């Protein structure tokens, strides 16, 4: 396609929007609502994932071994566990290290009491591995595996935090897919109506174009341009809102719910906005392109 032809199609697409300004605005508004919700759920999901990831990296699974196992046997079990794909990292704590930690935590100021145990380390049989997982949702299955390992005495882990966060994330995900799906359908319906209206306005012109020998692509192009512009506008508007609202929301939550700030660390907008913007623009472009492309098909009888 020549550059002049391309600009001609763009100009005609803009003219189409102006001809049907109210329908076009309604389409833009619906797509904006759809993409705004998408951005909102995207932000929530990304932040929840971030917290889950924090939990994954800070809350580990502790594995204790039978007291009669030698250091070499414990090391061998540790190697076996370390080869599992779910394991992100693991740290070994020997009985002596465990005693040192205990002394620091519980015998501070009572060193003479701790000195009584110097010859007989009460934590001698408490060698352990602290394991951190790649994905908390696999924790239950992994713990089950550990508990069935020969030589493993006890497995300590926090099931509630992981389960709570992962199920919250799943609910948010499902809810967002549902709402976005409904809004997508409404957007496509509205673009469909807008393009149909424009096609009706341009019926005469399209007929002449067909007689002159315009290809379907040439007849279709202004409508696709119209759909794409509506879609992109429908993406840019909510992105601008999100840019402003995200900072406001973080500020509000941190001010009003200070208790949350210790456990819930928000991701900075700069780290999520590029991905959110790219996805939203693609979504807008996709809705506009496909809705107009398929709507105009029935008006293309040669």
């Amino acid at each position, binding site marked *: 396609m020549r550059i002049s032809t391309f600009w001609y199609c763009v100009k005609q697409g803009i003219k189409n929007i102006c001809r049907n300004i109210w329908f076009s605005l309604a389409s833009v508004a619906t797509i904006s609502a759809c993409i705004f919700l998408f951005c909102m759920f995207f932000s929530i999901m990304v932040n929840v994932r971030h917290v889950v990831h924090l939990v994954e990296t800070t809350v580990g699974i502790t594995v204790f071994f039978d007291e009669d196992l030698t250091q070499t046997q414990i090391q061998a079990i540790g190697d076996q566990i370390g080869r599992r794909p779910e394991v992100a990292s693991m740290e070994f704590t020997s009985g002596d290290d465990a005693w040192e930690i205990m002394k620091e935590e519980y015998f501070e100021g009572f060193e003479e009491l701790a000195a009584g145990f110097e010859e007989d380390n009460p934590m001698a049989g408490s060698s352990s591995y602290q394991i951190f997982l790649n994905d908390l949702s696999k924790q239950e299955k992994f713990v089950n595996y550990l508990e069935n390992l020969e030589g493993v005495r006890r497995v300590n882990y926090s099931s509630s935090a992981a389960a709570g966060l992962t199920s919250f994330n799943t609910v948010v995900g499902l809810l967002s897919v549902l709402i976005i799906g409904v809004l997508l359908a409404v957007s496509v319906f509205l673009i469909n109506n807008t393009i149909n209206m424009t096609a009706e306005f341009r019926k005469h012109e399209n007929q002449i174009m067909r007689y*002159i*020998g315009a*290809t379907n692509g040439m007849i279709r192009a202004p409508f696709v341009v119209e759909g794409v512009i509506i879609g992109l506008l429908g993406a840019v508007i909510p992105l601008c809102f999100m840019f402003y609202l995200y900072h406001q929301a973080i500020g509000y939550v941190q001010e009003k719910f200070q208790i949350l700030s210790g456990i819930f660390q928000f991701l900075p907008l700069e780290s999520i906005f590029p991905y959110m913007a790219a996805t939203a623009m693609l979504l807008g472009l996709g809705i506009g392109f496909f809705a107009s492309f398929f709507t105009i098909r029935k008006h293309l009888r040669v």
Partner: protein
Amino acid sequence: MIEISNVCKEYSEGNKALKNVTITVEDGEFVFIMGRNGSGKTTIFKLLMKEEELTSGKIVVNDMNLGKMPRSYVPKYRRRLGVVFQDFRLLNDRNVYENVAFAMRVVGASSRRIRESVPEMLQMVGLSAKYKMFPHQLSGGEQQRVAIARALINRPEVLLADEPTGNLDSHNAMEIMKLLEEINEMGTTVIVVTHSHEIVEKMHKRVIRMERGCVISDETEYADEAAAEDEDDFEYEEEEAGDDDEEETGSVAEGGNIYED
């Protein structure tokens, strides 16, 4: 060359629009297809435009078999035709220049070519001075000239005109026919679908007459015969000089019409 061989066209309602029609039009010919409403002349026009599919038979236009032509090739084929309609079919929101340029733009011509060709074409149809005017500011004859300019701007091999003078008075009608004749003299094959006896008689061209979907006469020689008859008309017209167009039209129809049923 256009070859229409044993063509039948039946619409879905069972209405037979064309029955075994055979017509051959040589390159550079000027042909009238004439007939009453429902005679099938517009169906031929639509078949040639590839707007309708034929039921049986064969149509070959410049070595292209329309029956076997894939849909995707239709736009390319139509670029080799120029089409003019009774109702002009101009874009009312665009001026004369833009209406003609539109035909080049939609086939992807460059801006430079458009700037060169459109003024030339407007000069040919005598509308150079009115290039900025909008269709509603032009007379019917001028609007049809714009439509002809638009049909010719992509240099088609064949010009199809469906009742091109149907909305014009006899003076403007003859002006348009003269323009079509000039275009034909430049080598373009011209096919005019009409029901106007007056125009046909005055033009002295080949006339294919249709009735109820059949060709009832193909009077290639008509031009000569009519020329003799037209001499009488000419004398008659001279006597009537000064009369208005309607009277002139009536007199010609009465004097030289050999197609009256």
